[in-house]
């Protein structure tokens, strides 16, 4: 057993554990950050996606030893008092049915737009292909991602002009 320092949504937690323990298990079942969902535990569905040093990462296969000391953002850490533009876009496009994949989709989109603010539909399909929506709302999610991209550009453009 070792102690790992996890920096999550601006707070620091000291967690006792084995090096191979999964980040998702700690987030969900010990810190009650339940927005990151358990879908497969294999890193194959994306429902547990969080940002680690600004990169999208599947937290179910992220080991404590690998994320210790890094900056972790979960869906609870997005947006502050208001919705993040990506969350707002998902809400407006109603890009979900059961909603179980939604937090992971939102986090994957935040990460995607950070590296590519103007993704084409093909870019979206390629990057987001790691996330599964079993309800099949993919066309709506693509719409939400594009909507979020456009709004982010407009907002940033407005800020630059000011």
């Amino acid at each position, binding site marked *: 057993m070792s102690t790992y320092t996890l920096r999550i949504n601006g707070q620091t937690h000291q967690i006792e554990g084995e090096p191979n323990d999964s980040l998702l298990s700690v987030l969900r079942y010990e810190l009650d950050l339940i927005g990151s*969902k358990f879908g497969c535990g294999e890193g194959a569905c994306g429902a547990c996606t969080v940002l680690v040093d600004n990169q999208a990462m599947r937290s179910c296969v992220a080991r404590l030893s690998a994320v210790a000391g890094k900056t972790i953002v979960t869906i609870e850490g997005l947006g502050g008092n208001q919705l993040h533009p990506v969350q707002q876009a998902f809400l407006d496009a109603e890009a979900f049915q059961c909603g*179980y994949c939604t937090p992971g989709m939102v986090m994957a989109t935040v990460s995607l737009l950070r590296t590519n603010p103007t993704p084409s539909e093909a870019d979206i399909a390629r990057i987001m292909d790691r996330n*599964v929506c079993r309800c099949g709302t993919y066309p709506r999610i693509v719409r939400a991602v594009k909507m979020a991209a456009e709004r982010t550009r407009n907002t940033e453009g407005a800020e630059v002009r000011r």
Partner: protein
Amino acid sequence: MNRPVDIEVEVERYELIEPARYRFEVERREFMRIFGVMGAGVLVLASVPGSAQESGRTGQQSASSDVSAWVHIDERGRITGYTGKTEIGQNIRTSLAQAIADELRVPLNRVSLVMADTDLVPFDQGTFGSQSTPRMAPQLARAAAAAREMLLDRAAAQWNVDRATLGVKDGQIVGQGHSAGFGEITKGQKLVGAVPASVSPSPVAQWTSRGTAEKKVAGLDFVTGRHRFTPDITRPGMLYGAIIRPAGYTGTLTSMDDGAARALKGVTIVRDGTFAGVVAPTERLARRAVTSIKAEWSVPSDLASSQTVYEQLKKAGSTGGGRGGAPTMAGDIPAARAAAARTLDASYRIPYIAHVPLEPRSAVAEWNDGKLTVWTGTQRPFGVRTELAEAFRIPESQVRVIVPDTGSAYGGKHTGEFAVEAARLAKAVSKPVKLVWTRAEEFAFGYFRPAGVIEVKAAVNGSGRITAWEFDNWNSGPSAIQTPYDVANRRIQFHQSESPLRQGSYRGLAATANHYVREMHMDAIARALGVDAVEFRLTHLTDERMRNVLTAAAQRVGWPKTSSPDRALGIACGTEKGSYIATAAELSRADKGFKVERLVVAFECGAIVNPDGLKNQVEGSVVQGLGGALFEAIEFAGGKLANGTMAQYRVPRFKDVPVIDVVLLDRRDLPSAGAGETPIVCVAPAIGSAARSFGTVATELPVKLL
């Protein structure tokens, strides 16, 4: 063939035979409990006897097929609907509330629903068979309409005015210079009512919320991740469970070395007969404990494989039982075949496929003074209550099942073995326990859509008309087994068989397999005769609704012209659960066969309740259908699944999704039918028939060029 209309007629007829008042007294105790929870006000029960529904499961202890709903309006005017249906992504928390809002003439945000809590809602068989919209919504609407009429009666009496001069507007009773909120009129009273025969839901022309694209209720909780699905439920002092499993999908525990697990601090091993599990203070520790246990299992030999299963199913169905019932017969098959210009026969194989709901089967169980409360994602809360009561030999009244809005099900969550497991672990440690199945457990210990063999034989006369149609389905199921085409001589039979793998319900169930084979064969006949596949179908169709969707899909896709010369078109149509679907597929050639470029879907389910929610359901159903059409199939041998993980079992992802063009036909003159299932049924035959333009297509699912 006009099924939704038939259903409505049945409801009305049964109502006359068995008046609701009789049921009302039985439910009185329940009512009092609702007043206890919700406070005084008005409470109305609506209930109609139900009809047999396909669920893939039977044997419920407190079996009643009644469709019951309550509507309560409290002293502050808050409106609450009570239903045993579960929200699993199909959006009924929104669409059912729309029905109540309309009848009480209030905006949607004034209405909330209590769903699927067995201590708070009337008994319900379960959420399956696309019944929520055609059966539950009218009950909630009737209850709400009756509540409205009761409020008008009270207001007229209180104000001593002519009732006919009063109206309902924005949550107020108004007229004759008076106005009062719903709550004020019933202050301090506990009014209970049933639905009088004179009250019926508003006609479609008076819909205000229904018929509009209302936003999903509680959408905010999903985009923020705040909604608590079952795996997110926590209870004070809760511990975490895990189950000890064999390596494959079957096996009996023979011995177990749990020394290493016992050495872990806080870990409890629970063994009861063939059941074995662990409880630990953290999920990580429970997982670690389970992996440290060395268990021996006895696994039967000579188990079927995904190669041998078809022969086995057919054999078991034909000789060993054949419980599918008598065939549907019409006319004289041998005479028709003898007189035929040509005959075309084929045999198809349908594999097992998995639901793969993203929220794994899971439960949180808690015992308090002998009463068991379980939070779990299931489509049958009352069925799971029965399972729990039986497992622990306690009365059903000592069991409460609460279903949080669930991370999808698709027919895969009709059972509650995970609830039983969590409850067993919780009982052992006298603390609440959460159990979340791993993805591997999901695949191996859930159940599958049934595999099957389907044989079809057709005879065609000299003028190109089908004169005989024989259709035998072994094991995959009887849904939509009948042909909607006009054929004089028919023999159609379902042969139930012994399935080597655990099987059960699935979105659309066998309707997908039966549509696949029927429509592929219709296409094969049209091709053999050298006639257009749409024209060929139309000459055999008198059902207007089917003709309409077929024509709409053909027109939208540009039938028979492809959008570029190297592409191919295919089309299929069908009906299931009272709604009508036609799907057209456009394919291009690709390295290993073909690529689906575009799907056009024409869908008609009577009067549309929520156009945006409906479109979402249709698109989603089509995407799910793509999986079964293109790549989903469970592979197994020697008691193990060969592809029982998310990485190995391919489900549709972003890159697999073509352009999907949905045409919704709104029939406001017809009752609303359910819509979550039917759009899945024609995806595979549309793709399969298009693929025939590129080569020979295998007589199996998924669709494959030979």
